[in-house]
C-alpha cells in the first residue's frame, strides 16, 4: 500500500514537473537559449496568483490567465528589447545575459515581496479524495489535470496554427524561415513569451500545492535542467517522460536513501543520462 501511495504521489509530482519544464524546453529547442529566467518567470507567476488571492480573494485557478498573460507580455518585451540583440552571438552569451536579468529581478522581488515562503491556501486546500484505501490530495490532482490540459493546448498550437508552424520553421532553419517571409524578431519574441507564460502558469499551480519565495526560482530552474536533459529536447513527450522519471526517482529515492539526498538524486540522474545518451532519452537528433 505504501508503494501504491508513493507511486501515485510520484505520478502527480511528475505531471507538475513536466508542466514546469515545457516552456524551458520550448525556448531551448527553438532558440538554443538556456533560459535562466525560466525559474524567475515561474516565481513571478506564482506571486501574481498569491497576491490576487491575498488582496482580492480571487480563486487561484481563476487567476491563471492573468498570470499567463502578464508574463507573456514581460517575456515578449525582454526578448524583443534585449535577447534579440545577441541571438546570433555564441550561445553562451544568451545564457549569461538571462543570468544577469535573473539576478536583477530576483533581488527586486526579495525587496518588494520579502524572502518569506508563501503559499496560497484556498478553503479546499486540505481536501483529499479517498480511493481504495489511498488518499489522493484534491489540489494536486487538479494541478496535474490542468497542467496536462495546458500542455496539450500548447502542443496543438505548435502543430496547427500559422504562428506555431512559423516557430517550428524558425527552429529548423533561421535563415530559410526569414527568406520565406517569417518575421524572425517577432517569432522569437512570441516564442519567448509563450515560454514565460508556460512558466508563469506552472508557477501559479505550484503556489497552490507547494510554497514559493523569490529565491525558489533556482530550485525550479535546476529541475527544468534535469527534466529536459533526461527527457530530451524537441518534443513535449520528452518533457513529460523526464518529469515522470524525476518524480519517481525523487520519491522512491527519498524512501530508500532518506529525504536529505532527494535533490542529489536528480543531479546523479542528470549526469548519468548525459554520460549514456547526451541527447536525452526521447530527444530527437539535431537538438543537441
Amino acid at each position, binding site marked *: 500500500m505504501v508503494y501504491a501511495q508513493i507511486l501515485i504521489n510520484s505520478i502527480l509530482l511528475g505531471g507538475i514537473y513536466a508542466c514546469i519544464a515545457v516552456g524551458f524546453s520550448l525556448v*531551448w529547442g527553438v532558440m*538554443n537559449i*538556456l533560459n535562466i529566467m525560466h525559474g524567475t518567470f515561474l516565481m513571478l507567476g506564482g506571486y501574481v496568483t498569491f497576491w490576487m488571492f491575498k488582496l482580492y480573494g480571487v480563486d487561484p485557478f481563476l487567476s491563471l490567465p492573468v498570470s499567463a498573460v502578464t508574463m507573456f507580455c514581460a517575456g515578449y518585451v525582454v526578448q524583443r528589447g*534585449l535577447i*534579440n*540583440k*545577441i*541571438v*546570433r*552571438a*555564441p*550561445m*553562451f*552569451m544568451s*545564457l*549569461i*545575459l538571462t*543570468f*544577469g*536579468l*535573473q*539576478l*536583477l*529581478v*530576483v*533581488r*527586486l522581488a526579495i*525587496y518588494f515581496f520579502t524572502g518569506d515562503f508563501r503559499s496560497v491556501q484556498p478553503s479546499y486546500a486540505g481536501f483529499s479524495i479517498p480511493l481504495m484505501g489511498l488518499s489522493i490530495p484534491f489540489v494536486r490532482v487538479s494541478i496535474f489535470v490542468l497542467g496536462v490540459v495546458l500542455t496539450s493546448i500548447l502542443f496543438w498550437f505548435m502543430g496547427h496554427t500559422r504562428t506555431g508552424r512559423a516557430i517550428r520553421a524558425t527552429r529548423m532553419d*533561421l535563415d530559410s524561415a526569414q527568406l520565406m517571409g517569417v518575421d*524572425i*524578431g517577432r517569432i*522569437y519574441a512570441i516564442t519567448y513569451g509563450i515560454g514565460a507564460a508556460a512558466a508563469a502558469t506552472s508557477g501559479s499551480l505550484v503556489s497552490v500545492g507547494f510554497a514559493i519565495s523569490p529565491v525558489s526560482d*533556482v530550485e525550479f530552474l*535546476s529541475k527544468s*535542467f*534535469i527534466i529536459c*536533459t533526461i527527457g530530451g529536447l524537441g518534443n513535449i513527450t520528452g518533457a513529460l517522460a523526464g518529469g515522470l522519471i524525476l518524480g519517481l526517482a525523487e520519491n522512491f529515492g527519498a524512501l530508500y536513501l532518506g529525504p*536529505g*539526498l532527494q*535533490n*542529489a538524486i536528480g*543531479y*546523479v540522474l*542528470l*549526469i548519468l543520462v*548525459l*554520460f549514456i545518451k*547526451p541527447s536525452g532519452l526521447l530527444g530527437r537528433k539535431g537538438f*543537441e
Partner: protein
Amino acid sequence: MFKPWAHIQWFSMGAGVLALILLPSFVENDEIRKWMDILMVAILATSWNFIGGLTGYPSFAPAAFFGLGAYTTAILMNAGFNFFITLGIGACLGALVALALGVPILRLRGHYFAIATFGVAEFFRELADNLRITGGGDGINLPQITGGPDYFTRFFYFSMLGVAVLAVLTQYFVTRHRLGYGLVAIRENEDAAAMTGVDTTKYKIIAFVLSSIFPAMGGGVYAYRAAFLEPIDVFDVMFSIKAIVMSMLGGVGTVMGPLVGAVMMEYLSDYLWGAFTEFHSAFLGIIIVLVVLFIPRGLMTLSQEVKSRGWGSLGLILKSNIQRFKV
C-alpha cells in the same frame, strides 16, 4: 633574437607583482583585505579562462572545485595537517576529480556541458550537506590561526597572492605554448582542430584539470581565513558566475583580461554601491547585461579599438557591438 615587446610584458608583470608584494607595507588592513578578495576572484577568473576562455567550453564548475578545496583544507587541518600541505593535497584532489569528470563531460558541447558542470557543483553541495565528514548542513569549524590581526591579514594575503601568481604564470606559459594554440583551435572549430592533428580530448582534459587546480587552492586559503564553512557558502554558483563575468569584462581568452576584469569589477562594486550591499547582486546583474550587450569582447579589445580609432568613435564602436548579433 631580441624581442622588445616580450621584455616589456615581463617588465610590467614583474612590476605588478612587486607592487602587490609591497602593498601591505603601505596600506591599512582593510585595504589589504579588499585586495585579498580581488586576488581570490582573479584566481577564479584566470582559472575559468583555461576552459571557458581559451577552449570555449562554458564551465560552471569553479564553485565545485573551490568548495572541494575549501572542505579538503578544513577536514585535513582538523586532522592536524599543516596548512600548506592541505593546499597541495586540495590541488591534487581537484586535479584528480577534474580528470575523472572531464573524461565523460568534455564529450558534451554547448549547453549540455554548461548544465553538466552546473550539476556537478550542485551535486557536491548536496553531498556536503549530507555527509558526516563535512559536518553536513551545520557546517564545519577550522582551527583558528594564532597571532594578531596584522599578522594573519598579511599571512592570508600572501597565501592568496602566491596562488594567484602561480595561476597567472601558468596561464602565461600555456598561451605561448603548443597547448594554448591547440586550445584556441578547439574553440574556433573543434572538428577542424582534430583534423589538423590536435588531440582534442587530451587537450580539453588538460585545460579542465588546469582550471580546477587553482580554485581548489584558493578555496583552501578561503577556508582557513573564514575558520567556518557551510556548504551553501563555498559551493555557491556565484563564484562560477563571478569568474565568468570578470573574464568577459576584461576580455575572454587573454592573460590580462581576467585580471583587469577582477580589479575593475571589485573596485566598481566597492565605490559605486558600497553603501547598498543589499543590492549588490542586482547591480551585478545590470553590469552583466551591459557587458553582454555593449562590450562582449571585453575592455582589452575595446581599449585597443579606441586607441586605433580615437575616443570620438567610442559611441560608434559600442553601437556596432550591439548590432553585430541581432536578428
